[in-house]
């Protein structure tokens, strides 16, 4: 998925099942500053609803999502909390 979004950290959660993609994303996000962006790769189809829901609940912003090869890909910007 081509995009010009600057990515600060890539989270490769391919092959992992619920709830591990969310845990991996949360772990990576903890280390970033507000405004920085993570790119999450996942193959768990549950991520399609899990990642957007998690992003809303944590005050982070899902910038865009799509696919990259076999993987689902999500770009999330860290919020203020």
């Amino acid at each position, binding site marked *: 998925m081509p995009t010009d979004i600057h990515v600060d950290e890539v989270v490769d959660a391919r092959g992992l099942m619920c*709830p591990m993609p969310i845990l991996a994303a949360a772990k990576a996000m903890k280390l970033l500053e507000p405004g920085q962006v993570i790119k999450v790769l996942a193959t768990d189809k549950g991520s399609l609803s899990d990642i957007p829901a998690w992003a809303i609940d944590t005050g982070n912003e899902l910038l865009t999502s799509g696919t990259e090869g076999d993987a689902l890909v999500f770009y999330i910007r860290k919020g203020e909390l």
Partner: protein
Amino acid sequence: MTMQTPAASAAETIPLTEADIRRIVKEEVTKAFASNPASRRAAIIASKGTLDWAYPPLILANAAAAAGMQVSMFFTFYGLNIIHRDFEKKLKVDPVGNPAMPMPVPMPDVVTGMPGMVTMASKMMRSRFAKNNVATIRTLLDSARELEVRLIACQMTVDVFDYAPEEFIEGIEFGGAAAFMSEARRSEVNLFI
């Protein structure tokens, strides 16, 4: 005299930088959370002691903690198996009386009740989880503790089942019904599993 639209003059008088907007958003969100702290708390009772039923409470607790919630898990009755230090041996699946369990061929209870079937079914379930890359119970327990989920063993059932405190994994607490209720009334998410 030139005329200005209200929006243009407001933009002139209060120039907002991105940092200002971030600060305002942070203040508003903090205020919203402070006015309803219960929305950030979850209390989960884990009452079942089989391998399959160990998963739902642990998965939900981890998901809640990853979403920034303060989570307390209460392990009571057979749920104590999940936090027993020998949980890997103790958590099994019993196919008897479980018509929903996927079996290679349909089996009546007289067959699934035969010796060795619990071991076989548990092995099958474990390999199915492993094949699908589902996290192990150990991974979920480790991650819950890393995310500061409170793991609380029900004192009454610990006593009734003759468990010694040192039979449980590291980092657990002991508590009773009132301790759970105190947590539950301050948590918007309450689950009994």
